[in-house]
């Protein structure tokens, strides 16, 4: 059988097996690749560093549970950075299906590790339906949208919220997102209310977000696991993203090899099919 025929008839399960091995092996072998910090990640880090200690920032968790391997390490890095600089965090979510509970878990775990207190250092407002109304309404008054937090505590009874009632009271918005809600943060909250926005997003979303960076509508961006690993490197706290990058890079090399092989097979079979 010719090489072209063999490539064409290759059982795709061999590819799945190779991909699987490429994920598992770096967990047992020290396979690492150099990590270069991109300008978007550096810009986001520098923005956070430039905020005065004690600033209030907003960290929306616009994420579904299905993208947690990408978004959770980014969220943890953002929260760690904020707590390290003694910032206060106001969190919320426009994704009802998991966003608020993910925010709750991440904030409480990181808050406990950093010795932060709920209500004083961080608040989770939870979810309210209709993101257009929520994002627009919070520009005027957060209390008009959220009378209570995620667990039903009245917002007015939370010390952190005493001086926070609109985007004007927030120094920066560090959105964690895996869906188009981020577009509305940019168009409504950024453009209409003038809030400064940066984001950590899934890799699928990243190419579209570069347009917002170029247009100055976002100050910085973390794109997927790579962005998370870069941010962890800047923080000096390597964690989940950094751990996954060995497998990530190995699989990328494998897929490049598959693409080359696929094209070789395609051109060989086309040449063989040509009448003599």
């Amino acid at each position, binding site marked *: 059988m010719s090489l072209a025929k063999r490539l064409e008839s290759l059982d795709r*399960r061999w590819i*799945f097996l190779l*991909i*699987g091995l490429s*994920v*598992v092996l770096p*967990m*047992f072998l020290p396979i690492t690749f150099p990590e270069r910090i991109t300008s978007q990640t550096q810009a986001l880090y520098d923005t956070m560093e430039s905020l005065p200690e004690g600033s209030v920032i907003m960290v929306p968790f616009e994420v579904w549970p*299905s*993208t*947690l*391997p*990408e978004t959770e390490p980014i969220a943890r890095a953002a929260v760690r950075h904020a707590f390290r600089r003694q910032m206060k965090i106001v969190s919320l979510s426009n994704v*009802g*299906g998991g966003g608020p509970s993910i925010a709750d878990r991440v904030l409480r775990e990181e808050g406990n590790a950093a010795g932060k207190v709920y209500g004083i250092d961080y608040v989770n407002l939870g*979810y*309210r*339906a209709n993101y*257009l109304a929520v994002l627009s309404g919070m520009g005027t008054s957060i209390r008009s949208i959220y009378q209570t937090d995620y667990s039903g505590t009245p917002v007015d009874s939370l010390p952190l919220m005493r001086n926070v009632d609109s985007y004007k009271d927030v120094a920066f918005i560090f959105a964690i997102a895996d869906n188009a809600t981020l*577009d*509305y943060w*940019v*168009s*409504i909250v*950024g*453009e*209409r209310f003038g809030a400064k926005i940066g984001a950590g997003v*899934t*890799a*699928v979303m*990243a*190419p579209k977000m570069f*347009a917002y960076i*170029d*247009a*100055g*509508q976002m100050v910085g961006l973390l*794109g*997927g*696991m*790579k962005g998370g690993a870069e941010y962890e490197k800047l923080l000096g706290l390597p964690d*989940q993203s950094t*751990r*996954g990058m060995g*497998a*990530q890079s190995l*699989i*990328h090399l494998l*897929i490049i090899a598959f693409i080359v092989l696929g094209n070789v097979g395609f051109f060989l079979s086309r040449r063989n099919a040509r009448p003599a």
Partner: protein
Amino acid sequence: MSFLVMTITALFTLALYSFLYKDNPVYRFAEHVFAGLSAGYYAGLIFQTVLVQQLWVPLWGGQAWLILPALLGSLMFVRLSPKHAWVSRVAIAFVIGANSGILVMQQLHGLVLPQVAKTFVSMASVQGVLIVVGVVCTLIYFYFSKPHTGVLGGVATLGIWFIMISFGAHFGYTVMARVSLLIGRVQFLVIDWLHLTS
């Protein structure tokens, strides 16, 4: 997460990945459980966050006008009767009209105009030239009122190259995203569940 919950999670993960070998009843069972759980979760979520939080509580708190949107919303259920299904169009028309009114201007001022403004750049740099040429050629590729022949055809072909490079970037990032999800699951199985490494 307790070991029991972790084991159930791990078994469902393995059941879903068994599809990679071939379709099988274990995979279908896991898929149906996931679909059922999701539907139940969302029914509860919408009931609590919309019907209770945004209708029932404020209605009894004195906001009687909320009866109007409640009636409008309930018109959607008329679709269950084929004879009277047309009545639901009133509610659909309201939703489409309201959202269009809000979104069209919002998107125009918030996204379209700032993005267009950013393409008015100096062509003194390579990046500036690439942006202007890329935008113009790509737009011309989507101009279908004249046949893509001659100069127009050449410019449109250049537009295709820009589009293909963009697709390539999207594909690369999509691979990274999907692989990240796989890594996350395998890390859960190998590290969190089986403790085979740290």
